[in-house]
């Protein structure tokens, strides 16, 4: 049972990341689409040791920057740190509450969006920081939470 639940979490991470890369042109047209890459990274960091989570973030940052054709160094560094910090915070803050994962995802995605905006577009647009990034964080949390409920149901 324990193994199958852990496998379920990985199925969810892989699905979320596949969706992100397959639907990237669609999501990039929306000003506030779900950031499934950050969502997948944070979900993965809940499963991994901090060192592995950093490596996972590094790989995802490299893929994302290659797709974007810009920000190669910035995105690899930000995602490496995000993976590491996500894994460490999980150790500090994890609770059994059903609200933990969506809250963790929403706050994590929001912070990642703000940091990437500050590092890649200067000065960052107020509209993005105050409207689009929070909307993207909520959308990501909602999609990942719904996915987590589904895979938990099938694998439980």
């Amino acid at each position, binding site marked *: *049972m*324990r193994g199958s*639940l*852990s496998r*379920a*979490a990985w199925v969810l991470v892989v699905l979320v990341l596949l969706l992100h*890369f*397959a639907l*990237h*042109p669609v999501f*990039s047209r929306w000003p506030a689409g779900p*950031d499934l*890459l950050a969502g997948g990274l944070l979900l993965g960091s*809940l*499963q*991994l*040791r*901090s*060192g*592995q989570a*950093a*490596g996972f*973030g*590094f790989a995802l*940052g*490299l*893929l*994302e920057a*290659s*797709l*974007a*054709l*810009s*920000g*190669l*160094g*910035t*995105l*690899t*560094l930000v995602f*490496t*740190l995000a993976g*590491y910090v996500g*894994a460490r915070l*999980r*150790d500090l803050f*994890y609770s*059994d509450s059903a609200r933990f994962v969506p809250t963790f995802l929403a706050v994590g995605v929001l912070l990642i*969006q703000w940091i*990437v*905006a500050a590092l*890649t*577009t200067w*000065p960052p*647009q*107020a*509209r*993005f920081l105050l409207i689009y990034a929070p909307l993207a964080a909520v959308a990501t949390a909602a999609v990942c939470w719904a996915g*987590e409920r589904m895979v*938990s149901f099938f694998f439980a």
Partner: protein
Amino acid sequence: MPYLHANRRDRTRADLIAVLVFLACGGLIAALSPGQQAGLASIVRRSALYPFLELHRASSERAGLQRRAAALRTERDSLVSELAEYRRVAEQATQLRSGVGLAGPAVGSFAPAEVYPGRPRIGDSNEFVLRGRQLASVTLPAGVFTGRGLVGVARARHVAGVRGEFWSHPDFRISVQTENGAITGIVRPYRRDGGQPIMLLEGAPFQSEIVPGVHLFTTGVAGIYPPGLRVGTIRERGEEESGWMKRYYVEPAVRPEDADVVLVWRRPELGP
């Protein structure tokens, strides 16, 4: 209880070393030159991202086929009428040149290509990848444009295509002149209030005045862009530049998101 019963234990020192190694790799990548970063990105695009990029290409082709056919028909019709108008002028020019013993003008040729813009996490893309069968014969850098005007510049080879920058790229500069050639200047991208990028004409002489609606064309200086290519239209006057030059806001002829099929200029071979 760990998240979804994940069974893992942190080994702090080994993890810390791993984190430092990955951060060092990230720092190393950040320190690479833009050309080296583009090379690394092209390796990733050729390998791990290849299936996704093919998927994007196929879906974009499928979705855009009908729209593109209608747009091409309209463009063809307007080109036919424009060609009829200019054919007479070209014939006269040929007659005059042969009359005074001048060789024909070397205008070069054009390689058609499809544009695949980069997709950054935030904001609009300033870079693109071009794909086309005839791109192999293009000498880089080379101007990229559509029938409506300038799109950007093709910079370097990238996997099977060519990597380039839209005119909205912060490093982009182009020498322009008004239609009569009286006023010249340099156009660069400009973002006002964080909105959509427009162009800014700099270096226009202080004593000159360009009225809104005047078209700007490439001068062809440096041989990267063909001369006479439309860049944009004067929208309004900006603030003065150091009191000696004038600035003008320019409406671009082509917005980056509107470019899907483009032409890349193959500059003519110059004689000895």
